[in-house]
């Protein structure tokens, strides 16, 4: 079962046939397992990893360190929930160390991101401080490398 999830995590475009052969299952077993994973939210969704820098779309991504005051009985969950509801927010992680939450947000412009941080994030009552880092270039995400690799010169030899 873990095998099927690993295969889907690395490439969710594999067909049911391919998944079945590779995981050593029948197609019916694969379909049933995927349905269960989806129902139980073990599989949350299927997305493409896009290199927007190769398109005409302008996009800015920022990583924000957020310090918050935890709430009695709810810890960090309530404030995290208030943050992740915003559409601009891509990811939210609870961290160990010098700050509490990492929030990754994307916007069209620097101004848009700054506005979100200043107006929405920093003003939440439990947020005690933020530090914003703009992402200048993505090299690798989800095991995928953004730069197009050079290929070795191809010469057919008989092996």
């Amino acid at each position, binding site marked *: 079962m873990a095998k099927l999830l690993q295969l889907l995590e690395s490439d969710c475009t*594999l067909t049911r046939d*391919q998944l079945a052969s*590779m995981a050593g299952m029948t197609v019916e077993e694969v379909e049933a397992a995927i349905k269960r994973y989806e129902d139980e939210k073990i599989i949350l969704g299927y997305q493409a990893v896009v290199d927007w820098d190769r398109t005409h779309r302008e996009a800015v991504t920022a990583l924000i360190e957020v310090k918050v005051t935890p709430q009695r009985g709810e810890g960090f969950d309530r404030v995290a929930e208030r943050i992740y509801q915003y559409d601009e927010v891509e990811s939210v992680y609870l961290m160990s160390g010098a700050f509490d939450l990492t929030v990754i947000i994307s916007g069209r412009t620097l101004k848009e991101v700054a506005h979100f941080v200043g107006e929405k994030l920093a003003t939440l009552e439990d947020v005690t401080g933020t530090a914003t880092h703009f992402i200048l270039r993505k090299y690798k995400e989800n095991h995928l490398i953004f730069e197009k690799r050079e290929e070795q010169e191809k010469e057919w030899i008989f092996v």
Partner: protein
Amino acid sequence: MNYDSILSERVKELRPSGIRRFFDILEEMKDAISLGVGEPDFVTPWHIRDAGIYSLEKGFTKYTSNAGMAGLRRDIASYLERRFDLKYDFATQMIVTVGGSEAIDMTMRALLNPGDEVIIPVPSFVCYAPLAQMTGAKAVLAETRVEDEFKLTPELLKSCLTPKTKLVVVPFPNNPTGGIMEKADYEALAEVLRGTGVMLLSDEIYAELTYGQHHFSPANLPELYDRTVVVNGFSKSHAMTGWRMGYVCGPAPIIKQMLKLHQFGIMSAPTTSQYAAIEAMQNGDRDIEKMRDEYDGRRRYLVEGLRRIGLPCHEPRGAFYVFPDIRGTGLSSDEFCERFLMEEKVAVISGAAFGPGGEGFVRCCYATSMKDIAEALTRLDNFLTNLKKKQGRGEA
């Protein structure tokens, strides 16, 4: 100059591989899919590449000892024991070579005299017979059969054995058939060889790519240990084809003689590659598992796909090749490959290129992406459907 009269008779007698023309066509074809390659599609794992780079940064660019760095040989010895339960003394029973190929060449040259016979199971990789012929020995081809899962059976061995037999090549897991040999298979061969002076050259370059079971070496049998030379390397197990790293292990008196050939012909295997190989031996087991797991998934998918389309194929249990039976199409292996390439732009290799026993089969390599394998299967289905239609109309 009349070079023809100058050149060595033996080298002139070697026949070049017949599929060069096929590759020339393939090179011109822009959007062809190839199941024709014979090497991993993975890049060497980064930590191994990094070790090579680091050695260059440190300026480790000199020759090593002839047999290879002692540290590397120690690591290889420990790897062979850890992974295959093979015990070799790094100091007297091992040489680090330029790929498995040099190891095969040296084994032949160290053992064979003119007139000796070498039994070579075919279909198999194409280097054994030419290298044997260069020593003046005679290659005796033993045709393995699909009914026997392309194993070298004791009956087949017996039928080829003569008083002149010096060496038997055992190339398993096998390129191109994917066939393997198990413990019982070697026990049966041991019985045939008992009382003879015949040696075995076990080419185990695909040993790590054995699926669903552990690789078994003839040298695992105490009875065969003293008459076996084991050839292995890093090309297939660690995706290191271009580094040219192999090794040969065997009885000390043979290795001692071989070291002279290696010393005079090669000096020492590439130093950068040896440093990378140390990293591969010390920290590379997980890479092997990961790549084998990936190949195994593709293997099952390709075998199931071929059978679904209607090409029978035996279950390949090693290497990264499937060897389907195309006799039902009415085409020869060469015709099949050429027409499949021209009509559907997919390259597979004619079984006939691997020796007489390969006629009627083609080699499909699954060291390529799932996407390409899936597309190749779709095109193969098309090809066979069209072929049937044409044959029905009497056009093909």
